[in-house]
């Protein structure tokens, strides 16, 4: 029997043990291949011609994905190798040469790699069809997807993964050479001291997190710190957040748990003692992993929330500057009366108003036109311009930057600005963003030429592309909410797709890392649960302590990630003046939900490992 045969047999017989590792490699390949297929897809590249942004996003994301997938596979591989140390030791004890074992592991890993590549590319091909359809849907495009098998994608995937597998195989080979037989006999007998909590570093953690949050929530325009640090500010915030999270895990939680453990009334009840001391060990040993997971979660939540927010708000953004479906200058056009909701001819005069050193153009409308337009848009606080007053409308007004104007001079007389509206009463790109509302009487006095605009609102404005195109060809100074919406969805749809795709990958990967970690620990803890079983702890109680241990390990980084994300998104929404509450909540809920599924899978795996192995004897 050749070594190659032995390696093959090894895999076939131990399929169950290998399935976790093979599963994660296949998963990585599917993800990567799908993404690369999309990148090379002709539909996408046709799109990319019109939008350089999309192709840029795709390439950058593919690179991030590659790095990520490499790390993930390396991680699964090291987990897998750890599990097999005993097997290797046994071979070694029986006198098989290290070189032979090393070759065997090398072959084995390569066989697994090949197998995963075939399966992964096959499944990835199918998945990419589905995802491409979703992508097109999100971008609001009605393109029938061709059944093209991208050779470029296959070659790209093959090369990337061949290198990754070669690397992990060499890693496996190296493990054998570093391995000493004596390690096997001492592997289990480690005496770790319980971590001591240092109050100073615990406080430092809280302080640096608070500082990071405070900085992030500073107003970009007014804060002197922003002016001082300018572009290094984000780096400072991120660094403080990461350091804060790490300290929080390593000291703060250790401190809290130690205090809880010392409280006899709580700790000496049921398995609380066991739960808290297990967690103490686990958190201390896993600070790095927990910090990485919290940071990754925060990144995913923030990026995903922001992108989803923009996508979700596309409608609202359009409405803010283009409240009417169509608007143009000139005579009315014929539109199917069944779909028209509102038509209004708007008369307006243009005046130049001096503001300090420069002049600004305002469209002037009279009170009755304003009232009609505003009422149609369901404005609640429609004010009436009195004699000597005007109302000002400035859709781009932002109190942080814009200058507030108290009075204007029209036709030589001064009028007080009685009210400022910071939203558009008509489409800004046809009429302009700034307007003045004057009394009907004053309007008639203004000598400037009068222009007539048509404002039309139709049903189901998002799907009136044909009508929009027809009108655009016939009219002057045309603006269309339909067109704006489509453009916005196209850009943010691609962003959303890439964002959720990467988000999902990060999510699955972080979930899997915790899963792997907990499974290793379950293996180590087997003995403990056997002892508990023998001294009469019921299975129900054991399950409860496992649930709370695993739950804490999942909840802590998730909670911190959510908190980081919430702060970052608050800062983001302040900056863009967008209400992100709903989309962010939806996004966070989805994230938490998938995490919860992982939690249940892990608890099940933990229970299984602990019970099956330990209860017979």
């Amino acid at each position, binding site marked *: 029997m050749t070594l190659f045969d032995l390696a093959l047999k090894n895999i076939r017989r131990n399929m169950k043990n290998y399935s976790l590792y093979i599963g994660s490699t296949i998963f990585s390949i599917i993800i990567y291949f799908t993404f690369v297929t999309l990148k090379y897809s002709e539909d996408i590249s046709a799109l990319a011609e019109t939008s350089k942004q999309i192709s840029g996003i795709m390439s950058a994301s593919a690179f991030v994905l590659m790095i990520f997938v490499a790390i993930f596979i390396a991680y699964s591989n090291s987990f897998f190798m750890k599990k097999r140390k005993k097997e290797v030791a046994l071979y070694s004890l029986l006198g098989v040469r290290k070189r032979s074992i090393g070759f065997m592991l090398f072959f084995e890993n390569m066989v697994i790699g090949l197998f995963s590549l075939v399966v992964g590319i096959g499944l990835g091909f199918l998945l990419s069809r589905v995802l491409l359809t979703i992508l097109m849907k999100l971008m609001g495009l009605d393109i029938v997807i061709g059944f093209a098998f991208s050779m470029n994608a296959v070659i790209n995937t093959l090369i990337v993964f061949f290198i990754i597998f070669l690397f992990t195989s060499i890693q496996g080979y190296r493990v054998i050479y570093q391995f000493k037989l004596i390690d096997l006999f001492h592997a289990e007998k480690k005496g770790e001291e*319980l971590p001591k909590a240092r109050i100073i570093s615990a406080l430092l953690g809280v302080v640096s997190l608070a500082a990071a949050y405070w900085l992030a929530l500073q107003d970009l325009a007014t804060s002197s710190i922003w002016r001082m640090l300018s572009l290094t500010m984000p780096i400072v915030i991120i660094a403080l957040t990461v350091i804060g999270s790490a300290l929080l895990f390593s000291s703060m939680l250790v401190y809290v748990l130690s205090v809880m453990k010392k409280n*006899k009334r709580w700790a000496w009840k049921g398995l609380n*003692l066991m739960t808290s001391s297990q967690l103490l060990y686990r958190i201390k040993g896993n600070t790095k992993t927990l910090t990485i997971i919290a940071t990754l979660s925060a990144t995913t939540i923030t990026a995903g929330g922001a992108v989803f927010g923009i996508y979700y708000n596309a409608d609202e953004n359009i409405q803010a500057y283009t409240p009417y479906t169509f608007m143009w200058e000139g005579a009315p056009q014929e539109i199917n009366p069944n779909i028209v909701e509102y038509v209004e001819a708007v008369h307006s005069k243009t005046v130049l108003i001096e503001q300090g050193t420069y002049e600004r153009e305002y469209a002037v409308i009279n009170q009755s036109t304003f009232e009609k337009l505003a009422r149609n848009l369901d404005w609640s606080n429609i004010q009436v311009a009195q004699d000597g007053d005007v109302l000002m409308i400035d859709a781009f007004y932002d109190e942080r930057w814009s200058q507030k104007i108290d009075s204007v001079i029209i036709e030589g007389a001064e009028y007080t600005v009685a009210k400022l509206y910071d939203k558009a009463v008509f489409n800004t790109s046809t009429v302009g963003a700034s307007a003045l509302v004057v009394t009907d009487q004053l309007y008639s006095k203004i000598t400037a030429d009068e222009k007539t605009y048509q404002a039309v609102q139709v049903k189901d404005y998002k799907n009136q592309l044909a009508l929009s195109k027809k009108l655009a060809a016939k009219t002057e100074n045309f603006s269309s909410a339909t067109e704006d919406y489509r453009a916005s969805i196209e850009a943010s749809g691609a962003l959303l797709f890439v964002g959720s795709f990467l988000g999902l990958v990060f999510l699955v990967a972080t979930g899997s890392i915790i899963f792997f970690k907990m499974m290793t620990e379950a293996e180590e803890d087997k003995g403990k649960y056997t*002892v508990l079983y023998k*001294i*009469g*702890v*019921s299975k129900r109680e054991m399950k409860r302590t496992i649930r709370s241990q695993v739950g804490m390990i999942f909840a802590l980084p998730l909670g911190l990630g959510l908190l980081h994300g919430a702060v970052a998104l608050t800062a983001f929404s302040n900056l863009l003046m967008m209400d992100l509450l709903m989309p962010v909540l939806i996004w966070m809920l989805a994230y938490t939900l998938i995490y919860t599924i992982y939690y249940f899978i892990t608890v099940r795996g933990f229970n299984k490992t602990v019970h099956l192995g330990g209860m017979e004897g």
Partner: protein
Amino acid sequence: MEPLLVVRNVEKIYGNSANTFKALENISFKIDHGEFVGVMGPSGAGKSTLLNVLATIDSPTNGDIFISNDNIAKMKEEALSDFRRDHLGFIFQDYNLLDSLTVRENILLPLAIAKKPAAVIQARVDTIARTFGISNLLDKYPYQISGGQKQRTAASRALVSNPKLIFADEPTGALDSKSATDLLESLSKMNVEHETTIMMVTHDAYAASFCRRILFIKDGQLLKEIFRGTKTRKEFFQMILVELAQLGGDVHDVI
């Protein structure tokens, strides 16, 4: 007086129909309250199987086991773990201490699981630790103390909840002779002074000589029992050696 433990026609069969192995065959005996009983026999005789079955860790294929008036052979999983918690104590060859807990925490675990108030726990732990001479070790971790101290910790844990019956599986197997003697004397003292009922599996004649009565099993069957009666420990030790010689098997090499 009602016996504490009654074992009636217990049988344990391993394997499926095609390939069965009888680990225990038709075993019946009784243990009264306050007894210190040893179980001896060659390797593979079924000592550990018997202990596991009695300790509710394993269930018998046939037969009944009554502890007080409860038939543990017929109990359900959940009831069994409560029963173990409330009435049984265990000492194992490899101590089975939890290394993330201090000596004190290891000892109080059974009381914590039984949801006893903290003040009661404190008092009981202090008392039992004094009995086994480990009062000064209470705040140490298992990896900081010696094997003998670990086994005394394990014994304290087994006894802290005042169980009806203590099961000890080769408790001196991993100890040097001094530590073994210390442990056995402590157990003996508990047996005499507090009438703690102990059942100990061992194949060490020296350890067995601390018992009041010894059951010999071979090939899954109860062969014989001998009583110490009024004999000294040394005389009893000689008696055990004679029995073991008659029993044959590989027990001799261990001594």
